[in-house]
C-alpha cells in the first residue's frame, strides 16, 4: 500500500515537471542505447568466442601477424599436425586454407562466377559441429590421392545457382575449370571458416607433410575446438611447450622460427582470423572505452538532474524526516523517480538498439554486396546477453543515479533547513562533490569528443586524400582466370597464357570507341598496401629488418597513363625487358627522394628480403614514377614507398583499370562483352568505379566512425546539457553564499568573475584529466591508424576550445540569472 502511495507521489512529481522528465528519459535512452548497441556489436563481431554448434570455443592456430602487411600468415602444416597430434587440450583440430575459385558451366546463367572457397582437411565440419543439410560432409577417403574430386556447396549457392534443386547431389560442376561432384549442401547461414561458399577437401599429401617447408603454397591454417573447461591461456602454454620441443628438432635453415618476432605460430580466438579485426583491435578497445565513458556521463547527468530535484525539494524532505519517515522509506522514495526514469529510458533504449542493429545490418549488406566477403558472424542480432546487459546497466544506473540524491537527502542538516529555511548554502563536502561532478563531466566529455572528432577527421581526410591517380571515368575489376586453363607458370616462361590473355583483352578493349586505355595492377593506388623490407645492393643491413620498407606491386606495360600517373625520370617498361634476363623495377618519387637523396636512384639494384635469409631476385631501378599511395591514408599499413615490377615476368592475379568516356554502364557492358567473347570461363569480379574501389577498404572504418560520430553527437548533447545542468545546479546550490557575498558588497561583475574563475579552474582540471586519457587512447589508436596533424589540431585544440566555450556559457548564464535577483531573495531562499 505504501509503495503505491510512493509511486503515485512520484508520478505526480514527474508530471508536474514534464521537461525535466523528458530530458532525463532521453538522456537515459541515448546513453543506455548506445552502450547496449556497442556491446552487441563488439561482442558479436570481436569479443564473444565463436562456438557454432559446439559448447566450447573455436580457436585459430596460425602463423605470425605481420604488422607491416596488416595480415596474418599461414603456418607450416608440419607444426600444425604436431600440435593436432600431441595436444591434450584440444577436442578436434582441422587444417585448411581459403581462397577463391571459379564456378562455371552453370545451367541457369551465362558466364562464370567467382566463389569464396575453403580447402580443408576432411574433418572441418566435424570441428565446426555442423553437418550438411543435404547429402554428406567429407570423409577421410575424399582426401586420398586419386579420390574423385568432390565439393560441398553453401545454401546460398544452392539457392542462387541451382534453384534449390533437391536432386543436386551427384551433379558434376566445373570448379576452376575442373569437373567436381557435389556431395552436400550446407545449412543456410553457414560459411565457416568465414566467408566460404564452396568447400573442397585438401589432398592428404598437402596436410600430412613429413618435413618442414617454407613454401607459401604449402602453408595452412589450423582451427581447433577446445575441450570442455580448457581456457585459451592453458592451450597457449601447451602449444608453447609443444613447439619448443618441435623447434629443437628443426634443421638449421628453419632455426629462425624459434625466435620469430611475435612467435612463428599464434593461438587466438577464432574471430581474430579476420585481419581487419586484428588490425583494428585497438580501435575497438577505444570504442568500448568511449562507450563506457558515455555511460558514466549519462549516469552523472541523470544523477545530477535528480540531485538538483532533491535540492529543490529539500525542505519537503526535511518535513518528511521531521514527521518521522524512516531512512529506508526515504531512500526508496528517492529511488522511485530514478526507477521510473531509467525504466522508461531503458524501453526507449531497447527500441533504439533494435533500430541500430537493423541499420547496421543494412550497412554491412552494402559494404559486402560486391565482395560477398562478410564473415558469417557479422550478422548482428539482439541476443539474450544484450537483455542481461541492459537490465544490469539499468540496475547500475538506478543505483548510481538514485543513491546520490538519497544520500543528499539523508545527510542534509534538516534541522537547519527547517529552522532557517535555507537551502542555498553549500556545505564543504557537498561543495567538493559538486566540483568533482563538474570536473568529471568535463573530463569525460572531452575524451569522447576528442576521440570522435579525431577519428571522423581522419576518415574524412582519407576519403578525400590524393592517392596520386585520377579516379574519374575509371572502372576497375578483378580478372579471375581458371588455373586449369591458365596455369601459374614460373617466371622462366615469361609470356604466359595468363599475360597473353591480359594483353589481348587490353588490345580488344582499346579498339572500342568509348575506351581510352586499359592497364593492370596487382593493387591499384589507393588500395592494397602492406610493406616488406628490401635491401639496396652495396648498402645491405646486417639484419634483414633493419633495411628500409617498400610496397611491391606489379603492373602491365604502358600502365601509367590509364591512371594519370607519369614517368618523371628514367623510362617505362618496354619490350626490351621481356628477354633481357634482368628484373626491372620502377619506384615512386617519394621513395626515390627519401632513399636516394643524391638523385642516383636509376641503375641501383634492390631486392625484397625476409626472415630466414629469404629474398627475391635483384631488381634494377629503370624509372621513377609520380607519387602514389597504396592503401587508405589513415591505415598504418598503407604504403607511401612503392616499387613496381613488370607483369610480363610473372603470372600474378591482376586488377584491371579502364579509362573510358561516356557512361559508366556502357563501359562496364563493353568490358563484360569483351571478356565473354574471349573466354566465358574467365570471371570478372567486383566491377565498380575506381572511387568505389578506393572507398571499399574504408567502409568498415567508416561504419565504426559512424558509431563514433553517434557517440560524439550523444556526447556533445550530454556534455552540453550535462555541463549546463551541473554548472547551473552548482551555482543554484550556492545561491545563499552568492547572496552573502553580494550583501558584503560584491557587485554583479565581482560575482560573475568569481564564478567564471572557479569554473575556469574546474575546466582546467577537467581538461587536464580528459586530455591525458585522450592522449593515451589516441596513442593506442595510432598503432593501427595514421592520424594526421589536422586531426590532432581539431581533437586536442578544437575540442578543448569547444568545451571551454560550453563551460563558460554554462557558467555565465546561471551567473547572470542569479545576479538578476536581489541579494535579499538569495538570503531567504527556501
Amino acid at each position: 500500500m505504501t509503495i503505491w502511495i510512493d509511486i503515485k507521489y512520484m508520478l505526480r512529481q514527474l508530471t508536474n515537471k514534464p521537461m525535466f522528465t523528458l530530458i532525463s528519459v532521453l538522456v537515459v535512452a541515448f546513453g543506455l542505447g548506445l552502450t547496449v548497441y556497442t556491446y552487441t556489436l563488439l561482442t558479436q563481431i570481436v569479443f564473444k568466442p565463436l562456438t557454432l554448434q559446439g559448447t566450447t570455443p573455436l580457436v585459430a592456430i596460425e602463423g605470425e601477424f605481420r604488422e607491416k602487411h596488416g595480415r596474418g600468415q599461414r603456418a607450416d602444416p608440419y607444426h600444425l599436425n604436431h600440435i593436432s597430434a600431441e595436444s591434450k587440450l584440444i577436442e578436434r583440430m582441422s587444417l585448411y586454407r581459403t581462397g577463391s575459385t571459379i564456378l562455371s558451366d552453370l545451367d541457369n546463367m551465362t558466364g562464370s562466377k567467382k566463389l569464396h572457397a575453403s580447402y580443408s582437411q576432411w574433418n572441418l565440419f566435424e570441428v565446426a559441429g555442423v553437418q550438411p543439410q543435404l547429402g554428406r560432409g567429407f570423409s577421410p577417403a575424399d582426401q586420398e590421392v586419386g579420390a574423385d574430386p568432390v565439393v560441398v556447396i553453401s545454401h546460398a549457392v544452392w539457392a542462387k545457382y541451382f534453384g534449390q534443386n533437391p536432386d543436386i547431389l551427384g551433379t558434376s560442376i566445373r570448379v576452376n575449370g575442373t569437373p567436381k561432384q557435389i556431395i552436400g549442401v550446407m545449412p543456410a547461414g553457414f560459411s565457416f571458416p568465414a566467408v566460404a561458399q564452396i568447400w573442397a577437401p585438401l589432398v592428404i599429401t598437402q596436410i600430412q607433410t613429413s618435413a618442414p617447408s617454407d613454401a607459401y603454397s604449402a602453408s595452412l591454417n589450423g582451427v581447433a575446438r577446445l575441450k570442455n573447461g580448457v581456457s585459451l591461456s592453458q592451450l597457449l602454454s601447451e602449444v608453447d611447450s609443444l613447439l619448443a620441443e618441435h623447434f629443437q628438432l628443426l634443421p638449421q635453415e628453419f632455426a629462425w622460427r624459434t625466435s620469430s618476432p611475435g612467435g612463428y605460430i599464434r593461438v587466438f580466438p577464432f574471430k581474430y582470423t579476420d585481419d581487419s579485426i586484428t588490425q583494428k583491435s585497438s580501435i575497438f578497445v577505444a570504442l568500448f572505452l568511449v562507450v563506457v565513458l558515455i555511460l558514466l556521463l549519462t549516469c552523472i547527468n541523470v544523477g545530477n538532474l535528480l540531485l538538483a530535484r532533491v535540492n529543490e525539494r529539500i525542505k519537503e524532505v526535511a518535513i518528511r524526516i521531521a514527521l518521522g519517515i524512516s531512512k529506508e522509506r526515504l531512500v526508496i522514495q528517492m529511488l522511485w523517480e530514478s526507477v521510473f526514469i531509467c525504466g522508461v529510458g531503458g524501453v526507449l533504449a531497447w527500441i533504439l538498439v533494435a533500430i541500430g542493429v537493423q541499420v547496421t545490418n543494412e550497412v554491412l549488406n552494402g559494404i559486402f554486396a560486391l565482395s560477398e566477403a562478410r564473415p558469417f558472424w557479422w550478422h548482428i542480432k539482439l541476443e539474450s546477453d544484450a537483455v542481461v546487459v541492459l537490465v544490469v546497466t539499468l540496475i547500475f544506473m538506478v543505483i548510481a543515479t538514485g543513491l546520490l540524491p538519497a544520500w543528499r537527502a539523508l545527510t542534509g542538516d534538516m534541522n537547519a533547513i527547517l529552522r532557517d529555511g535555507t537551502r542555498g548554502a553549500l556545505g564543504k563536502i557537498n561543495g567538493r562533490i559538486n566540483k568533482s561532478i563538474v570536473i568529471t563531466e568535463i573530463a569525460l566529455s572531452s575524451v569522447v569528443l576528442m576521440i570522435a572528432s579525431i577519428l571522423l577527421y581522419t576518415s574524412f581526410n582519407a576519403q578525400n586524400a590524393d592517392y596520386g591517380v585520377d579516379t574519374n571515368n575509371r572502372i576497375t575489376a578483378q580478372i579471375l582466370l581458371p588455373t586449369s586453363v591458365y596455369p601459374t607458370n614460373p617466371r622462366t616462361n615469361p609470356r604466359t597464357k595468363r599475360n597473353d590473355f591480359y594483353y589481348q583483352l587490353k588490345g580488344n578493349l582499346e579498339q572500342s570507341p568509348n575506351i581510352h586505355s586499359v592497364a593492370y595492377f596487382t593493387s591499384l593506388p589507393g588500395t592494397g598496401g602492406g610493406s616488406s623490407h628490401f635491401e639496396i645492393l652495396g648498402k645491405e643491413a646486417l639484419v634483414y629488418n633493419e633495411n628500409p620498407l617498400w610496397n611491391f606491386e606489379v603492373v602491365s606495360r604502358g600502365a601509367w597513363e590509364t591512371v594519370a600517373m607519369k614517368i618523371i625520370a628514367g623510362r617505362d617498361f618496354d619490350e626490351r625487358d621481356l628477354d633481357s634476363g634482368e628484373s626491372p623495377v620502377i619506384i615512386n618519387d617519394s621513395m626515390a627522394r627519401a632513399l636516394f637523396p643524391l638523385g642516383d636512384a636509376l641503375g641501383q639494384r634492390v631486392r625484397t628480403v625476409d626472415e630466414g635469409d629469404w629474398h627475391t631476385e635483384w631488381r634494377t631501378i629503370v624509372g621513377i614514377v609520380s607519387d602514389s599511395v597504396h592503401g587508405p591514408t589513415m591505415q598504418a599499413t598503407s604504403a607511401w614507398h612503392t616499387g613496381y615490377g613488370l607483369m610480363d615476368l610473372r603470372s600474378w592475379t591482376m586488377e584491371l583499370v579502364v579509362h573510358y568516356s561516356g557512361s559508366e554502364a556502357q563501359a562496364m557492358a563493353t568490358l563484360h562483352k569483351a571478356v565473354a567473347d574471349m573466354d566465358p570461363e574467365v570471371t570478372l569480379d567486383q566491377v565498380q568505379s575506381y572511387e568505389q574501389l578506393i572507398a571499399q577498404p574504408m567502409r568498415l572504418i567508416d561504419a565504426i566512425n559512424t558509431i563514433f560520430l553517434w557517440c560524439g553527437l550523444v556526447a556533445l548533447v550530454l556534455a552540453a546539457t550535462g555541463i549546463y545542468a551541473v554548472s547551473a545546479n552548482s551555482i543554484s546550490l550556492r545561491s545563499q553564499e552568492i547572496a552573502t557575498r553580494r550583501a558584503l558588497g560584491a557587485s554583479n561583475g565581482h560575482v560573475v568573475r568569481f564564478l567564471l574563475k572557479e569554473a575556469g579552474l574546474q575546466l582546467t582540471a577537467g581538461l587536464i584529466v580528459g586530455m591525458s586519457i585522450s592522449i593515451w587512447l589516441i596513442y593506442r589508436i595510432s598503432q593501427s591508424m595514421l592520424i594526421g596533424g589536422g586531426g590532432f589540431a581539431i581533437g586536442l585544440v578544437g575540442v578543448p576550445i569547444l568545451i571551454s566555450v560550453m563551460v563558460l556559457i554554462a557558467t555565465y548564464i546561471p551567473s547572470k540569472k542569479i545576479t538578476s535577483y536581489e541579494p535579499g531573495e538569495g538570503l531567504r531562499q527556501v
Partner: protein
Amino acid sequence: MDNSHKKILVELTEFTKTYFSKDLETRALNNINLKIYEGDFLSITGPSGCGKSTLLSLLGLLDTSTSGMYLLTGHNASHIHSNERARLRNKEIGFVFQSFNLISDLTVAENIELPLTYRDDLSKHVREEMVRMSLEKVDMAHRASHFPAQLSGGQQQRVAVARAIAGKPSIILADEPTGNLDSKNAESVMRLLEALNKAGTTICMVTHDPASAARTQRVIKIFDGEIISDKYNFTPTSVAV
C-alpha cells in the same frame, strides 16, 4: 529625545514595499518614515511576518522599495543601479545574519577579508591589518586560520560581527543575531554589539527577543508593515567587551 545635534545616517520617507505574485498583491511595508542617527543602537521588533526583516533588507540595500525615498549617509539610495548599491553596501553597511552566513571554504581570516577584497583601494597589507584589528575586537585572533565548521555557533557569530565591522561601515544591520545561539553565546554576542555601539558604531538589529530589544537604546515596533511605536530606552545596559 533630542537628536538635533546628531548626524542622520539613514532616512526613510514614505517607504513602501509591495510583493506581487500572479494574482496577489502583498504590502510588506506601508508608508514607513524613519531616521537612524549616528551612534544609535536600535532594535526592530514585531510578530512574525510583520515586515521587520523586509525593512532590514531594504535598509541593507539587499532589495529595492516599491516607492518612497531612502537616504543613506546623505546619498540617495533609492532606485540606484545595482553596482552602486553594491558599492554602498560594501562601504557603508555591515551585516550580521541569524545563520552567520560564513563561507565554509574560507578560513576565519579569509571570511573577514572577503568584503575588503571588493574594494579597489586597499592593498593586501592594509586588508590584513584591518582583519587583524577586527579579530582582536571580537577576541577571535587565535582562530584566524580555522574554518567555520571548526568553531562553535557563538564563535561563528563573533566572526560574522568581525566581518561586519572590518570595513568600518557607517551602520551594522543585524538580523536576529542571537536567534541561532544558546543563552550563553547570545549574551556574549549582545555584549559584543553593545561594546561596539559604545565605541561609536551604529547598530540596527531585528529581534524577536524582548530582552535583547530592551538592551538597545531605541526600540521600533512594527505591525502589519507599519511602525506602531518608536521609543528610546534611557538606560541601556553598559558593558565592556
